[in-house]
């Protein structure tokens, strides 16, 4: 530590803080939005309303986390939303076929995780092994996954069994189930960030050649990143299934780009090599809170999308500017 200080003796406190916690601007924006929300409608920050916010945006948070793993390595996954859709219909179709008892439901969830990881494996092969350009290649695999989802369930609306959504919407020990889920997911993410894999993903994103020359198996690491992304997209799908209580082969399509926006809002560089998962989660919440605040502010309904779009863009710009202003 003293060595680092000796090299860069003049770094100011905010700079050091931001270098250590790149998600701070996102947290600040989040706090401001919460304040605005509380001023506009005191009820909107009640435990009940905040639980509602978490349960609505838990899927987006998990999808943003999924996206973060590949962005760490300088990759991108434009099929993440399609994977979410595919897992959603897989799980619902399996539960419909084999019944809504606990065992078949768990089996369906297990199958969902396998499907998510398999989709990630396909992306990994296409991008890391075949070395196609990630943006267009994962867009193409996303079309393929959407086709698979449509084959499993041509039209939306097959209901999930009552056991599933009752559990998801219910409470354990007086605490809403979604909060347990969020806590468990948080713990899982925290454990993952301490693994060698995530360190290697960041190393690959920082400089693939340097990583390769220091003995990091670059191709395998990027593939594992995509598989991790697929797994988290599957977890996001479980939340969507619980929240909507049904299957929809196109449910995730619009979420892909939001997941990318959430990652960037969280202060993670799209170029790879630096960033935090906490930031992405905050980014997803920022998107959710912007929607809520725009609603509470009494914006006329036809203007809501526009104001939301403008606010997301503003938040993106502010985040980028703060990060650069403090760092440079």
């Amino acid at each position, binding site marked *: 530590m003293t060595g680092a200080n000796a090299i860069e003796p003049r770094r100011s406190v905010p700079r050091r803080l931001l270098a250590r916690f790149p998600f701070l601007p996102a947290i600040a924006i989040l706090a401001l939005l919460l304040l605005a929300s509380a001023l506009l409608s005191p009820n909107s920050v009640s435990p009940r309303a905040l639980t509602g916010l978490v349960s609505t945006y838990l899927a987006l948070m998990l999808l943003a986390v999924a996206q973060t793993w590949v962005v760490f390595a300088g990759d991108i996954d434009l099929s993440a939303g399609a994977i979410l859709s595919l897992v959603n219909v897989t799980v619902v179709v399996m539960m419909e076929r084999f019944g809504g008892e606990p065992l078949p439901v768990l089996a369906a969830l297990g199958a969902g995780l396998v499907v998510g990881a398999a989709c990630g494996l396909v992306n990994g092969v296409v991008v890391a092994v075949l070395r196609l350009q990630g943006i267009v290649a994962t867009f193409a695999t996303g079309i393929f996954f959407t086709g698979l989802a449509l084959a499993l369930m041509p039209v939306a609306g097959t209901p999930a069994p009552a056991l599933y959504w009752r559990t998801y919407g219910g409470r354990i020990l007086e605490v809403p189930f979604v909060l347990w889920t969020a806590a468990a997911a948080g713990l899982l993410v925290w454990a993952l960030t301490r693994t060698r894999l995530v360190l290697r993903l960041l190393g690959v994103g920082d400089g693939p050649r340097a990583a390769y020359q220091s003995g990091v198996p670059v191709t395998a690491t990027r593939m594992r990143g995509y598989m991790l992304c697929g797994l988290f997209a599957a977890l996001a799908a479980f939340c969507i299934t619980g929240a909507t209580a049904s299957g929809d082969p196109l449910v995730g399509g619009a979420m892909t780009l939001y997941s990318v926006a959430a990652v960037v809002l969280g202060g993670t560089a799209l170029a790879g090599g630096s960033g935090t998962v906490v930031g992405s989660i905050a980014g997803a919440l920022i998107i959710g809170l912007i929607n809520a605040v725009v609603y509470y502010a009494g914006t006329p309904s036809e203007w*809501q*999308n526009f*104001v939301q779009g403008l606010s*997301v863009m503003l938040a993106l710009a502010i985040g980028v500017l703060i990060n650069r202003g403090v760092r440079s």
Partner: protein
Amino acid sequence: MIRFAGAPLVMALALIVALLALGEALSPGFASVDQVRRLLIVAALLGIVAAGQNLVILGGREGIDLSVGGIVSVGAIVAGNVMDGANGAIVPAVLACVATGAAIGAINGLGVTVLRIAPLVMTLGMLGVLQGLLVVVRQGAPSGRAAPALARFVTEPGLFGLPGILWLWIAVGIAMALLLHRTVFGQRIYAIGSNERAAHAAGVPTGAVRVSLYALSGAFAALAGLCLIGYSGSSFSNVGEQYMLPSIIAVVFGGTSLAGGRGGYTGTMAGAVLLTVLQGILTTVSIDESGRQMIFGATLVALMLFYGRGEALRA
């Protein structure tokens, strides 16, 4: 070297011929003159959007324009409302719609150069804003009407049996070739795309060039929106969305590297036709939507194997 530069174009042309033959075998009449003309009209719309996308990508620094879909829709609405079915209002409609597109594109460009926001993020944010704007303007109902002359220009055979829009596309192709290879501006695009620092040191106004690339992308997208309204009569919900990622794929199929600085527009034109013929075959054969999407996705991946794969690290 010259042969290598032309390789993607030759490959795309060969694939187009092969796909047309396949289409004809699957459904006789697929490669008929009428049908090919119709495919080319659709390809021209995509190709005009891809022209702007191509410029932005050539300019490098991870240049990409995800907002083109939104700009196509906005262009269609502006054009449709300005002309409102009157032939006399076509010229003001063209001017208004291209100016709107260029202005939106310039905002993208300023965000990318002045604020230094990553292009993917900036144009993604812009897409969200434009989608919101469309809801405000349209309020759910179709808006604006194409002038009869514009509809004829886009759909009916004209000089040498080709509709006006194909002549427009050819003109865009020639203009792009001249712009890229015969002007200082074109040289500067390649310069900032391959090495921005060196270009800056050599006196290229890198910021101004990049802003104009995004403005041109917006202008081309809006122009495509105008033609689209001539094709479909009036603008309906998010007409432009279907062009966002296909415009990027057309550029890739044309042999332009997403890293910038390498490629050109001739290949992109072939890429746009290739993509359109592929989609045409899939709508012709009688399989359900799921099979169609699976084949489309898998074919895209297979075709990408022929283009610009990344370098192996151990090389």
